[in-house]
Structures are given as structure tokens and as C-alpha cells.
């Protein structure tokens, strides 16, 4: 009886968003009389940071401090239409919609400021600190707040903008069956090192290393946060979680969190991440977003590492000790495979 080490690798070419119906997201932005901006979205933040990312994108495009932007995702009944928070589409789709809305709102903001300063709107710039001034003449200035008040109470203008992002519809070529369902792809490669016990069938993940190419990283700490949490979920899917262990037979399914297995804080594997930025031509400031691909490559990498360790190819998840022991028995013992890439 022994423990065998194995290494597995997986790469992922990951589409951002989907295609059906152009996958639209809409955003509406308006200024309040105090010169602060409200962004209305109907997609919601699940904890991945969509509100923070769209807030950064709105502030950058409007040219105002980030503290002066509030993102409101309160109500999909009354908010602008959005397909929703899924398919790793948040940063890319909502970010683009927010840029479009913020550009329009910025145009009205500069027109209102131009009227107050009696200059041409095309000559105005923002300093990102709440001021608008004539290019090259910082003293010829007005605050965003004073501009919003003038627009509201004097000029009778609404400083607002509408934005929608829609990807080009792609139809299937009748001759070749070819289509282009997506416009932006993110990429990753992940290596997992495991140890498999041929007596118990248990797998321990010893460590993981990955490289993720996500376009422009709009919020580096949140990207890291998603990648660390997603990798944990990947290990959990690969080795533990299932509502129906003998599907389609419903027997022996877990009934609560005592029986629905997930790794706990004591089962963490050291994980090293490298982020590569290759900005997407159609992404908001080049961003694509991590999303579901944080977890995806972990599953095949762990499955490959198990095969590398004991020669058992498990094709259905999760890779339980029972499946590994049955495989080892069918092979007449553990069959460690050749390993590349140095010592584990």
C-alpha cells in the first residue's frame, strides 16, 4: 500500500458571455443635483464585484471621482433591461453598456458646463477630482457640482446618458456549419499536483499553479479574490460535491451540509496565480473578466493528475475514493504514469 504523486494540467479557452439575442445589457446614468451620479443596472452583484467594477468604469468615463458614483441594482422590474449576471459576462457586457451611458452623460455635462463658462464644450476637460476646466487654462473652471445645479435649476437640462451593449448576431453558415458565437475569449492554464492513496482511494491536492489571461484587469484585488475562491470551488467539484452520487439512482444523496461534502479551511492547497493582461479590443478598457473560468480548469487538471498518479481515468465527477479504488482494482493495481515537468 502506498501513496502515489501525480501531476495534471488543463487549459481553457473561455468565451465571455453568450450570443443568443445579442446578449444585451443596458445602463442608465443620471446626475443628482449635488453633482453625484447614479448608475442604474438590472444585473446584480453576486459578490463577484460587478458593482465595484461598473462603478470604476463609470467614474473613469465620466471623469469624476469614484466616490461620486453610486451603482443601483435594486430592481429588475423598473431598471433598464439586462440579460443578467451569468456566463462570466458582467465586466464585459455591463462595463460596455456603462461606458456608452457614461459617454452620453459626460457629453451633456460638458455642454452644461460650457454654457456656464461661455466656452465651447469641445475645449473642456475634466480633472477626475470633481472639476471641469478649459483645456490648458485650469483657472477657467467650474465644479461638477455647480454644473449639475445649473443644469437642474437654471438651464432645465437633465445630465443623463443611455447605454446598451449588443454583440453582432452570428448566424450559422449553411455550407460549413460555422458560426462565431463569441467576440471575446479569456484563457487559462492550470497545473495540479495530487497525492493518491491506493489503499483508501483518497486524493489530496498538494498544490496548484495557474496563469490566467483576462484582458485588462480592472480591479486586481477582486480578480485575485475570484481566482482563489473559484479554485477552491473547482477542487470541491472535482473531488467532493454531488447531490446524487449514484445518479440516476437517487439513493445515498446528501441531506444536509454534514453529508454534502466540501473542503473546509483545513483542506486548502497552496495556490500560485500569474495574471496576464491582453486587452480585448471590444472590452471595457480592454477587460474580459474571470467569472466561471476560475473554477473550470481545476476539474480536468485534477482528473489528469489522478490518472498520472495511479493510472485510473475517472470520467464522471466527483472523483470519489470509491471510483478510484474500483479503477485500481480493474487495472490490477496502481499504474503510475510517466511524469513531465520536474519533481512534485
Amino acid at each position, binding site marked *: 500500500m502506498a501513496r502515489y504523486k501525480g501531476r495534471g494540467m488543463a487549459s481553457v479557452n473561455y468565451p465571455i458571455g453568450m450570443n443568443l439575442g445579442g446578449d444585451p445589457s443596458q445602463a442608465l446614468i443620471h446626475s443628482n443635483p449635488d453633482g453625484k451620479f447614479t448608475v442604474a443596472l438590472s444585473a446584480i452583484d453576486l*459578490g463577484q464585484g460587478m458593482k465595484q467594477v461598473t462603478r470604476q468604469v463609470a467614474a473613469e468615463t465620466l471623469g469624476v471621482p469614484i466616490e461620486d458614483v453610486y451603482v443601483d441594482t435594486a430592481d429588475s422590474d423598473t431598471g433598464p433591461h439586462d440579460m443578467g449576471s451569468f456566463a462570466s459576462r458582467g465586466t464585459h457586457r455591463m462595463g460596455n453598456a456603462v461606458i456608452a451611458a457614461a459617454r452620453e452623460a459626460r457629453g451633456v455635462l460638458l455642454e452644461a458646463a460650457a454654457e456656464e463658462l461661455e466656452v465651447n464644450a469641445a475645449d473642456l476637460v475634466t480633472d477626475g477630482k470633481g472639476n471641469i476646466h478649459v483645456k490648458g487654462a485650469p483657472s477657467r473652471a467650474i465644479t461638477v457640482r455647480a454644473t449639475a445645479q445649473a443644469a437642474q435649476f437654471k438651464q432645465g437640462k437633465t445630465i443623463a446618458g443611455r447605454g446598451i451593449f449588443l454583440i453582432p448576431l452570428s448566424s450559422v453558415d449553411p455550407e460549413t456549419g460555422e458560426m462565431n458565437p463569441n467576440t471575446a475569449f479569456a484563457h487559462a492554464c492550470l497545473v495540479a499536483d495530487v497525492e493518491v492513496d491506493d489503499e483508501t482511494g483518497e486524493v489530496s491536492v498538494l498544490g496548484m499553479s495557474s496563469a490566467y489571461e483576462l484582458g485588462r484587469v480592472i480591479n486586481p484585488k477582486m480578480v485575485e479574490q*475570484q481566482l482563489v*475562491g473559484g*479554485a477552491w*470551488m473547482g477542487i470541491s467539484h472535482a473531488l467532493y460535491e454531488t447531490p446524487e452520487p449514484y445518479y440516476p439512482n437517487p439513493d445515498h444523496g446528501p441531506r*444536509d*451540509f454534514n453529508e454534502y461534502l*466540501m473542503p*473546509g*479551511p483545513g483542506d486548502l492547497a497552496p495556490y500560485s496565480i500569474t495574471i496576464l493582461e491582453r486587452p480585448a479590443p471590444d472590452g471595457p478598457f480592454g477587460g474580459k473578466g474571470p467569472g466561471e473560468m476560475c473554477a473550470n480548469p481545476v476539474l480536468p487538471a485534477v482528473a489528469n493528475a489522478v490518472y498520472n498518479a495511479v493510472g485510473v481515468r475517472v470520467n464522471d465527477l466527483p472523483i470519489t475514493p470509491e471510483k478510484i479504488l474500483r479503477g485500481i482494482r480493474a487495472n490490477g493495481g496502481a499504474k503510475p504514469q510517466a511524469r513531465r515537468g520536474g519533481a512534485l
Partner: protein
Amino acid sequence: MAKVPVQFRLNGSDRAAFADPADSLLTVLRRGLNDFGPKYGCGQGTCGTCSVLIDGGLRLACLTLAASCEGASIETVSGMADGPNLHPLQTAFMEHFAAQCGFCTPGMLTAAKALLDRNPNPSREDVIDAIAGNICRCTGYEPIIQAILAAARTLPAQRRS
């Protein structure tokens, strides 16, 4: 069933409520006293997000009968900050991105406070042991462990000796 009166201290204030004898402490906190800090997760003591401190001890509010808390001193995450000043654990959770969806956070903070109250200088293993009863779905636990260790380092030196 007739309601029974329950009185206890909640985050330093005397509070009273009428409770069904079968009501959990969690039900009375959330429905009776509008303290929505502790969350209702699994309702059977396996997820930890309803964690509270009863007379300083870490307890699951969903499995604690409210009537058994008569005269007790109860601390919830809602009382952790001192007015506008966040508890060092809350600050560390923010700085280390230890929350994503946030549903486990009240229980994590409470379990961490129970740990630091009895052991101001915990090892990584102590931290893992302290939060082992709390499930998190988003963070992969690592940022939470880092935040708790960082919070411990900010405690006054005399508490750590």
C-alpha cells in the same frame, strides 16, 4: 402555545421579547428584536452563519432555544463595531477581501472574535480550527484566514503577551 417573556442583554442593552417556547434564539433576534446580523442559513447547525456569543461562548443561534437565554449576555455581529469605529476584525476583513457574497461573514466574524477573545495570538492552525464550523462558498477560506491573522497582529501588544 402561550408566549413566554424572555429578557437578556443584547450587545450591551437590556432587551425583552415574547417568544414561543419553541422559538430559537435566531428567530427572536431576527423577528422579535430586528437584529438581522446573524443570518438564517441551514437552520440545523451545519453552516455557522447564525453564530453568536452567549456569555462569551460561541453558540449557534438556530439551535439555541430563546427561552434558555433568560438573563444571558448575547453579542451579535451587529454590536461588534464601536459606533463608527469598526472592530479590528471588520477592518481586516475589508482589507483582505475576506467577503464576497457576504452571507457567511457574520458567523465568520463572530467565530473569529470568540477566538481572539480567548487567544489573542493565534497560529494559522488555531484560526482554521476556530472557523471549521463555518461554511464559505465564495472565498476559498484563504482570505478569511489571512484577515483573522492580520487582525490579531493589530491587537494591542499587552493582549498578545
